[in-house]
């Protein structure tokens, strides 16, 4: 049907999208006339924040140790499910085998004891269902997800169950998949976004396995069906699994069925043991990935911060929102709306079972790389050095809390929240109390956190762009390590 062509994304041009950057005006830069945002505050706004209650999941434990979370929602004849298997993600891969977890997940669909790859694809389409599995770099988990109509739920859930429990990792399909993945490894190196993410992860995570965000052609070549089978047998365990199901189902009917379907999946002794945490780096370093002919510089800077269970998680969320959470935030207003350097500048942070980085980022045109860097440094520094005005804090908090209502349109949002609660061991009323806890955060909390974490002297800076034009600019921030698009380091610069 029309519009499905994914290429269409390029044919639609839109007012706002994520990016990064900054700079001081120069003679050749006519577009940097300051152009201030104006707040008239005349639009009629309800002062109240709509109070919404997320549906609470029904929880059950299967006899094999699996945790089941079910949210009943009978508005539409649809169901979605997500199986999160801890202790099976890429951060547990043995050294030198990047891609083992993701290849294992991808191969689940490529053949089971009773179904060929083609049969799985055909049956899924005949049912109008979607079934897939993935294990993303940096993650501690593998996720199997499926969705479809409620009136043939038993059929597509059985299919999902089959690929989870009975994969055969056939060699011919695996060779085909490996060849396709290797082409993907080549293709992704033409994307500035990939190059930026790769170098940034290497920079901030250091020796931690999350430093790796991609397989290599050599690691893919070395994979055998036996390696995948062993990974599947050892790491896919029910005691580490959380199964979330949301939609047009009856929990009371479903749980006994699940008990039966998953009976063949036996408990083991495997427990999740995380690698040692990554630590914030003490000194600033600058990395440059050379992309000759690039008309923009993609910039990203940041450093390791906190994990998801940290008591500072909520204040950190608000702080990041103030700096770069959207169109109302400082980076966007400064770098895009006022300076016109970029299509968008943002900040965010990654926070999982282990600490991940905060980051600020934008794509800026090559000529304003210098000015963009200066504004980034200014905005990041200002977060800790100056008191954040109450009104700004209030607006950020209100934005986070009020947007909760939008999550009710789609049950899978509530399901995600329930799964997150379970994974991180939050109390059952965590999301009910979330708005109150956000609203209690004060300006001092944010400034204290910013001082502690948002240091421009220790942040890691990555630029992807035309080295001939921007290397001298980046050198203002320290010695620059230069890399080629293939990931290798250039000379001894």
């Amino acid at each position: 049907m029309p519009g499905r062509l994914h290429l269409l994304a390029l044919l639609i041009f839109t007012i706002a999208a994520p990016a990064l950057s900054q700079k001081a005006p120069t003679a050749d830069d006519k577009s940097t006339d300051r152009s201030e945002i104006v707040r008239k505050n005349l639009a009629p706004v309800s002062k109240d924040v709509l109070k919404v209650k997320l549906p609470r999941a029904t929880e059950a434990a299967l006899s094999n140790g699996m945790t089941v979370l079910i949210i009943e929602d009978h508005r539409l004849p649809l169901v979605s499910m997500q199986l999160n298997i801890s202790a099976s993600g890429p951060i547990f891969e043995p050294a030198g085998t990047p891609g083992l977890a993701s290849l294992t997940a991808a191969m689940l669909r490529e053949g089971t004891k009773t179904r060929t790859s083609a049969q799985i694809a055909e049956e899924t389409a005949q049912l109008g269902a979607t079934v897939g599995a993935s294990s993303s770099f940096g993650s501690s988990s593998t996720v199997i997800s499926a969705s479809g109509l409620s009136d043939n739920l038993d059929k597509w859930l059985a299919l999902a169950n089959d690929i989870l429990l009975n994969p055969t990792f056939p060699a011919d399909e695996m060779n085909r998949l490996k060849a396709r993945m290797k082409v993907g490894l080549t293709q992704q190196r033409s994307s500035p976004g990939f190059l930026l993410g790769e170098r940034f992860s290497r920079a901030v995570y250091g020796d931690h396995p999350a430093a790796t965000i991609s397989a290599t052609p050599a690691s893919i070549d070395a994979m055998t069906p036996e390696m995948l089978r062993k990974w599947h047998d050892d790491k896919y365990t029910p005691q580490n699994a959380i199964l979330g199901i949301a939609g047009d189902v009856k929990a009371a009917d479903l749980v006994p069925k699940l008990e039966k379907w998953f009976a063949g999946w036996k408990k083991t002794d495997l427990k999740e043991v995380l690698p040692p945490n990554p630590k914030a780096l003490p000194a600033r370093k600058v990395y440059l990935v050379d992309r000759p002919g690039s008309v923009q510089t993609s910039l990203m800077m940041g450093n390791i911060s906190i994990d998801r269970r940290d008591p500072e998680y909520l204040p950190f969320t608000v702080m990041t929102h103030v700096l770069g959470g959207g169109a109302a935030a400082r980076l966007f207003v400064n770098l895009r709306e006022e300076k016109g350097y970029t299509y968008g500048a943002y900040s965010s942070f990654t926070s999982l079972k282990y600490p991940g980085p905060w980051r600020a980022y934008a794509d800026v045109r090559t000529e304003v790389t210098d000015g963009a860097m200066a504004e980034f440094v200014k905005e990041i520094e200002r977060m800790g050095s100056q008191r954040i005005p109450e009104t700004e804090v209030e607006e950020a908090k209100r934005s986070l809390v009020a947007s909760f209502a939008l999550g009710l349109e789609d049950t899978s949002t509530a399901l995600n929240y329930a799964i997150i609660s379970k994974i991180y061991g939050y109390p059952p009323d965590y999301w009910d109390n979330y708005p109150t806890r956000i609203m209690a955060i004060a300006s001092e909390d944010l400034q204290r956190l910013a001082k502690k974490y948002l240091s421009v002297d220790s942040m890691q800076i990555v630029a992807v762009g035309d080295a001939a034009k921007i290397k001298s600019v980046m050198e203002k921030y320290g010695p620059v390590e230069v890399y080629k698009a293939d990931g290798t380091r250039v000379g001894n610069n």
Partner: protein
Amino acid sequence: MKKQKLLIAVSIALALAPMAGAQSVNFKEYKLKNGLRVILAEDHSAPTYSIAVTYNAGSRDERKGRTGFAHLFEHMMFQGSENVGKGEHLIIVENNGGNVNGNTTSERTQYFETLPANQIDLGLFIEADRMRSLAITQANLDNQRATVQEERRERVDNQPYGRTFEEIYNLAFDNFANQHSTIGSMEDLSAASVKDVSDFFRTYYAPNNAVLTIVGDFNSAEMLRKIEKYFVDIPPQTPPPAPNVDEPKQTAEKRKTIEDPLVQLPRLDIVFKIPPGNTPDSYALDYLSDVLTRGQSSRLYLKMVKEKELVTGVSCGLDGLRRGPGLFWCSLNLRPGKDPAEVEKALYEELDKLKSDPITDAEVEKEKMAVRRAQAEQLQSTLGRATTVGEFAVFYNDPALINTYGTKLLATTKAQMQQAAKTYLIPTNRTVVLTVPKRAQEDK
């Protein structure tokens, strides 16, 4: 990220369309004295609502020397009006928990917000204020021109295959209205003047050239009273003439190879000129594109990705819905070392099968299930419904098409599909663009 999500929402909404008897979008239609068309669909299943204003103005309305203007103008709509400050739209909506965006295609320009249900007045107020009193100044124009040029760099000039789209439209179409890109050229963007902006606003952004759609948790009678209050005093204008988007019949294959320094591997884009959307032939071709490339049991995936291992990915589809001629577009990412001629040949063999044999019953079954699911899923997002209904009203004067698109698609017979393939998916009606790396990558 936010943008990506919205784009997906829009595509999925188009991809869905309920059949009779299934759940459908129940809406009411009104027209204000000033010609503003209003479509309201109550849905109380979540405490939210979405508002979309669809203006009948797109890049197809642009003249030579002013390409990119409709989209540049879209950015101007966020630069403030009598009671809303420059840049305040995005801020005020986000600060109240909502999502906001706008986008432009060749056919139309849309502005939309999703908000919690207790902020009904906010969405109406900001949309009415900018329809009535946009602030058009040289400073705003200069600033937004810079942003749009940055958008072009980020999304076109700096992306692998970014320029390929422009080459295809330019080559495949003969009429300037269809040929030029929505983002426009850097030169034309630089040439746009304040007078251009004012003229465009007066002509195209009148209430009688727009459709207001609202979907979600509200009371229609009360909503209508509020709409009257905010919009009714905006004066109508003489409607702009519809652009001529006719295309001459193509009589010979067109072909071009372009070099792109940012790509690593070749890509083939093969397009065929097809009739306007919402016509029997358009439904037939839409259906066929699903048979060819929807999912891993589709014909081209099985043949070209898995069996022959010629490409890593292939997708075919219509280039969106249009009122004039459009394109049936296949895009193929080549495996390293594969001969583009061999890839083309394999594609054409599959297209020829669509002409010689009817599609199978199993393929019909899959399409039915996909439509059933899509029509249920389209009821999840208020935004998807608001934007889709707005487009169908503007394009075909048929907002109910959101409920009948799937029915019309499934009503296509196997014979109609065969005939459409024979008529349109033929050598003399195609344009082939091959994008290749500019130089051998030393670092391979």
